[in-house]
């Protein structure tokens, strides 16, 4: 590990986490099933009328994606923390932020990407069509990594704390709100003909911002948790 | 003085419920905070005196 440059280290970490996830495929399935389940609850609660479902689809699907991400955050650092591997990771020569980026990327590939890929199907269930479906997928593609990066801060802050699953939600959901607003807003704008360009641009900007700031905040939080 | 009578003042042009609830809740909140802090301080003081007493006893 010492001889590796930053990108090589990044690749290694992603590879390792993906390998571990492959051995426990239930993680991917759990997230996907949860996403489907939550999204299905809304028509059951609200009624099957197509016009209503089409109106609430952007918000519902985005909230479902958001909650799926939230649920999966508990897994981000816990396994390594419990094994004592995380403490070892603090000692690597590469910056801790690189490690964080690696873990979050792997986490997104396992929990976020499946949601993005499934979203068009759910969009159809809610009566979205054509361009709106495309915008939905694109907005989730830009937004879910941002959610993972922001969520990692919460996961690091609450590492090993009792009641952390609820606490993470309380910490992280307010921070998710701008992403939710622009993500769901992109889809409803596209559906109502206004055009999603501005929303998507802001989502992209948000992703860049999260990519730059969140790993550093997460690394700081990890150090605080592990001292 | 713009209020013809006390009852006019209380009624607040028909909005009395909203105005007085607002001011009432605000006053209640702030007073509650003050009293809660006084209690907290008294408790903390008594604990400090207790632990000092215990330490003097030991030494």
């Amino acid at each position: 590990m010492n001889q590796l440059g930053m990108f090589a280290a990044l690749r290694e970490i992603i590879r390792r986490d993906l390998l571990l996830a492959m051995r426990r495929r239930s993680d991917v399935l759990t997230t996907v099933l949860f996403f489907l389940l939550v999204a299905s609850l809304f028509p059951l609660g609200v009624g099957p009328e197509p016009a209503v479902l089409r109106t609430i689809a952007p918000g519902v699907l985005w909230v479902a994606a958001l909650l799926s991400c939230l649920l999966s955050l508990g897994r981000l650092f816990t396994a390594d923390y419990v094994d004592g591997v995380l403490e070892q990771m603090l000692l690597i020569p590469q910056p801790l932020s690189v490690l964080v980026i690696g873990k979050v990327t792997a986490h997104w590939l396992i929990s976020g990407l499946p949601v993005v890929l499934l979203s068009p199907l759910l969009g159809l269930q809610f009566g979205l069509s054509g361009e709106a479906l495309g915008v939905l997928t694109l907005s989730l593609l830009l937004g879910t990594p941002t959610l993972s990066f922001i969520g990692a801060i919460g996961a690091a802050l609450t590492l090993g704390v009792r009641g952390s699953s609820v606490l993470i939600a309380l910490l992280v959901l307010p921070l998710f709100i701008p992403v939710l607003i622009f993500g769901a807003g992109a889809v409803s704008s596209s559906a109502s003909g206004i055009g999603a360009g501005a929303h998507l641009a802001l989502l992209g900007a948000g992703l860049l911002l999260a990519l730059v700031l969140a790993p550093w905040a997460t690394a700081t939080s990890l150090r605080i948790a592990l001292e | 003085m713009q209020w013809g009578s006390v009852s006019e003042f209380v009624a607040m042009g028909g909005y009395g419920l909203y105005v007085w609830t607002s001011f009432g809740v605000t006053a209640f909140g702030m007073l509650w905070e003050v009293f809660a802090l006084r209690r907290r301080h008294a408790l903390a003081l008594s604990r400090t005196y207790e632990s000092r007493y215990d330490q003097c006893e030991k030494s």
Partner: protein
Amino acid sequence: MMGLARINWFKYSSPQAFYPLAGRLMPWCAATAILLIGMGLYLGFFVAPTDFQQGQSYRIIFVHVPAAWMSMFLYVIMAIWAGLGLGLNARPSFMMAQAIAPTGALFTFLALVTGAMWGKPTWGAWWVWDARLTSELILLFLYGGVMLLRTSIDDSRRADRAGAVFALVGVVNVPIIYFSVRWWNTLHQGASVSMTAAPKMAATMLTAMLVMTLGFWMYSLAVILARMRCVILEREEQASWGTHPSHQDALEVH
């Protein structure tokens, strides 16, 4: 003013010195607060005229706006102390941040309640999802997060630092949240409903509001100093379990 420069402020950064100082400052802040709030109430009810559009209900702004302003101001101050704590690795800074949070949360809650009270007669609904109120609601969640994070972590050093990180993350997010909520609001409702569409303020109304805000500020100072004293006592008591502090180090408590 020069006299202030000659005081060695750093000596007050130790809890032993800060405790009596806070004890001396507190009554002055409290007295000033009572004076200012009393004056503000008088100006608000007996000098400020009736509003042309909103009648008497507008008078709620004399508590709503000061509370909302304090809720945001205190969050920023708390974040500054949190940042100082992390940067200087100074425990008293963390203690200050800890002392500020509950008061800020209280004002946020009051801003929401008075906002609802104002909204009902003005717009017919107990809650309006306008940008300011919605942002205020999210601010309440952020305060809650800071306080809950601190109480959930047993180790006080870790609790301080984790709470500080979250406070800083929150303060960076508040403008982002406000901007996004404003965007969301205009997108869905048009610019019709807005708490910022306050009545055209007569000078007397503005003065009353400012005086009340200053009064709330003095109140906050008094309450935060009091809470700081409690925090100092509680932490020293925790730290002294099993140890024997020398008589010079011991806190002078009155």
